[in-house]
């Protein structure tokens, strides 16, 4: 596809032509082209899994030349980056979502790490500090360059990252969701800084979900969906409106990716009231602010939100305060208040939590299938503290055939299984605890379409048996496909509570990318659009 948007400018500083990238079993990018003019800010938008980060990793050399198809032309020359170092050498610098600063070192030390200024082989501290001060002034950070990184907040750390990039003589700055972890003021400051760099001739590529930011700073935008570039629009020429971006991001058919189901929904049995949670690493931040939600028997409830919106912390704080320390709030099961102080309390009260990351949080990879299946409720197959191996095997065998876990026997190590089958083992492990409420955190991430379909089927079967399901996901089609009702969460606030009949991708996308509470219907789109032009908060 061609890019008429930035075409008015002189020769582009960067052209990525027909980039394709495959991982085993997945085509992450197919024929994606983008072009960035000198001193332009180019936005890349797309859903999770659309291929944005992969594209940036191709550009920065994380995936070296030869592991992808297509050409990268930078300042008129074909580039063959072997690693990140070789792309930085020509002035392409990436700033990641999670920073790569060393907390125990000072600002100066971090800025010059790997490219220390030396005299006769000894670090020239005076010169480094002097240059660091200059760079900090440039990014508008008023801090002593000898301050340790750990004393800075996230927003200031990000500015240090940018100072570091400037030290490397950056020509093209890549920012991966730079404002995802920042508050309103810090975000605004950062956006202004990016605009300031533009004045100095630095081009930027910014990955962002936040549409108001895109409208504020970008010159053009490329929308990715399922590894394809859908379209590139000129923002400054007012080709862009929010609906168009959203449609481009989510516009795919939903049919037949989900098993059929007739929901049979009962009474509310699980209720959380005024729940407040602190961030596990930064206790001064609240990741959930006095929110309430409830789940009915037999109901599949979605929790839609971007990564970092507080979804996981919210769910895990309900699950025996296992992560994200809870501050205040009450949980009611069948109308009676319960206090869940530990994971074992939560399990005893019939709550199960399928974690986001199955290999680091869900499974002991040294175990075999049968050991994994019974591991969350060993008492069920034990007598007087002694495990009855016959019962254990019978239970695991039941799930192996019932969930169609592809393995020769339950003696197979879980490490040997594919992602989808590992996830089925994790599901079996939690089904074995006889949950009343099953919380699933991104249960289909990184598994193929066929296994996804089967996992949806398992979730639906559990609901049909009268359990409640809370499904956390950033894939909107998935939520729309199997949920009965969807909560959306943005920056720790529940922004909408929609029956699935009233939800559509556009409404959801809006509710998970803006702070304001969406109305129950999608009718007031026009009004909202004008409101969102103003910076959030």
């Amino acid at each position, binding site marked *: 596809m061609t890019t008429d948007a930035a075409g008015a400018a002189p020769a582009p500083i960067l052209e990525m032509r027909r980039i394709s990238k495959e991982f085993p079993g997945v085509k992450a990018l197919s024929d994606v082209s983008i072009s960035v003019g000198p001193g332009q800010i180019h936005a890349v938008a797309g859903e999770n899994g659309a291929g944005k980060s992969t594209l940036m990793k191709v550009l*920065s050399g994380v995936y070296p030349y030869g*592991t992808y198809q297509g050409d990268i032309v930078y300042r008129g020359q074909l580039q063959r980056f072997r*690693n990140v170092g070789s792309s930085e050498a020509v002035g392409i610098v990436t700033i990641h979502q999670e920073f790569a*600063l060393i907390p125990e070192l000072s600002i100066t030390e971090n800025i010059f790490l790997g490219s220390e200024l030396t005299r006769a082989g000894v670090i020239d501290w005076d010169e480094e500090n002097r240059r660091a001060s200059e760079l900090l002034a440039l990014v508008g950070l008023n801090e002593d360059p000898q301050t340790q990184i750990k004393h800075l907040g996230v927003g200031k750390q990000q500015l240090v990252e940018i100072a570091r990039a400037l030290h490397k003589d950056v020509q093209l700055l890549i920012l991966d969701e730079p404002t995802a972890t920042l508050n309103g003021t810090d975000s605004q400051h950062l956006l202004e800084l990016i605009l300031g760099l533009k004045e100095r001739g630095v081009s930027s590529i910014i990955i962002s979900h936040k549409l108001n930011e895109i409208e504020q700073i970008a010159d053009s935008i490329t929308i990715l969906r399922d590894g394809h570039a859908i379209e590139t629009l000129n923002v400054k020429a007012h080709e862009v409106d929010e609906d168009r971006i959203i449609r481009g991001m989510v516009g795919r058919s939903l049919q037949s990716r989900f098993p059929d189901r007739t929901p049979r929904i009962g009474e509310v049995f699980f209720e959380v009231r005024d729940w407040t949670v602190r961030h596990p690493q930064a206790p001064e931040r609240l990741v959930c602010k006095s929110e309430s939600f409830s789940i009915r028997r037999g109901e599949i409830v979605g929790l839609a939100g971007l990564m970092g919106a507080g979804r996981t912390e919210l769910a895990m704080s309900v699950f025996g305060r296992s992560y994200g320390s809870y501050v205040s709030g009450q949980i009611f099961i069948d109308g009676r208040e319960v206090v869940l102080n530990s994971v*074992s309390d939560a399990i005893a009260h019939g709550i199960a939590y399928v974690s986001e990351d199955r290999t680091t949080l869900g499974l002991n990879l040294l175990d075999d299938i049968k050991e994994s299946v019974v591991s969350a409720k060993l008492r069920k197959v034990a007598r007087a503290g002694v495990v009855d*191996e016959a019962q254990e095997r019978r239970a695991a065998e039941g799930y192996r055939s019932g969930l169609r876990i592809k393995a020769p026997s339950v003696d197979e190590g879980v490490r*040997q299984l594919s992602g989808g089958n590992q996830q089925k083992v994790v599901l079996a492990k939690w089904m074995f605890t006889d949950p009343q409420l099953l919380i699933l955190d991104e249960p289909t991430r990184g598994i193929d379409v066929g296994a996804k379909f089967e996992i949806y089927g398992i979730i639906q079967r559990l609901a049909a048996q009268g359990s409640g399901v809370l499904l956390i996901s950033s894939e909107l089609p998935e939520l729309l496909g199997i949920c009965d009702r969807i909560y959306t969460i943005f920056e720790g606030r529940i922004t909408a509570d929609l029956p699935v009949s009233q939800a559509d991708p556009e409404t959801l996308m809006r509710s998970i990318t803006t702070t304001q509470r969406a109305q129950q219907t999608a009718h007031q789109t026009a009004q909202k659009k004008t409101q969102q032009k103003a910076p959030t908060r």
Partner: protein
Amino acid sequence: MSAPDQKTFRFGDLRRIVGGSGRQFGILGALIAIVIFFQVLTGGKTLDPINLLNLVNGNAYVLILAIGMVLVIIAGHIDLSVGSVAAFAGIIVAISVNQWHWPWPFALLLGLGVGAVVGAWQGFWVAYVGVPAFIVTLAGMLIFRGANQFVGNSTSVSLPASDSFAFIGSGYLPDPAWGVQLNLSTVILGILAIGGVVAREVLLRRRGRRMGADAGPLWVAVVRAALLIAVISGATYLFAKGPLGTSFPIAGLILVVLVLGYSFLANRTIIGRHIYAVGGNWRAAELSGVRIRRVNFFVMMNMSVIAAFAGEMWVARAAASGPGDGIGWELDAIAAVFIGGAAVSGGIGTIVGSVVGGLVIAVLNNGLSLLGVSSDRVQIIKGLVLLVAVGVDVYSKSRGRPSIIARLQRRALAPTAEVSPPDTVAHDKGSDS
């Protein structure tokens, strides 16, 4: 489900003779090879009854330490304090018998109590404060060595020679001696052991068939039982024909009982499962409702109690407790555990493997000294054996496991992720990778 009536011979079935694990197959093979090697080189002195008695009595305490140590290492910790704890418990036992004139059973219990208190202290720091066990037990190593010398005034305290306490360190079973050449109690023990082996095989197969598990071909069970019976009969004969008044040593009997008991604990009980779970992936264990603090507390406390018991066996055998007792024991125990196939990162290891690993060291020590090799060279050889044993293990694992190959492939796709400056490291947790 593969058929239990499999007819063809598969090489892999050989491994099942020792229970299916390649690691244990290797280490057991190594032990047998070393025994044969020294038996030939020493001209038959290695398997001489008197040498065997010395071997068992002189090493039982280290092997018992290895039992506790493997649990600590499976849970992902280490205990450097066992030698000092053993010495501390030992001196208190010696004083209670020598100066306070306590009857030995009470002294024995007092020593175990000391171990329990020490273990609770170390377990508290490891499990509830969260100080790494390496640090806690390094401190413990100093604290309890000093405590031993403080209590004993840095001198030895001897036990009354006639005290029957000695039997746990160097005692033998009674012999009715009905005019037979062989020691009868040893023979009876041997017969019981053989009966146990046969019963176990029968039970295993019967249960396996009932559960629909692949029990393997019948010949595997038969060969396994036959091998075990041969080893037991041979050992029984050798121990039974020792000098008058000797039998299979009581220290060895205690070891066997502890191995059986702790193997059961590790393999069959909930607490055992939890120890493996905490060592294998403590985050997943925590999210499965395992109370990991209790588990950590238990393994640390258990280790100190076992260390105290090992100290008592030593005092009983030496009939004295001194300021230098137990120095270096922790290293022998840790080496035994790693030679026996445990993983430094936790989650992997077996009681039996560790004891076999300890026997490898013991036979090596014994055989080399029989050959007149000086202790400096013995240390060098032991160090190399540890390195090679674990090196072979690591190498074969890195070749065999598909997951590690997969991990290498993933690295090959992103080779810069490891060598690039820190600000460019690829973040795999990016929002849409």
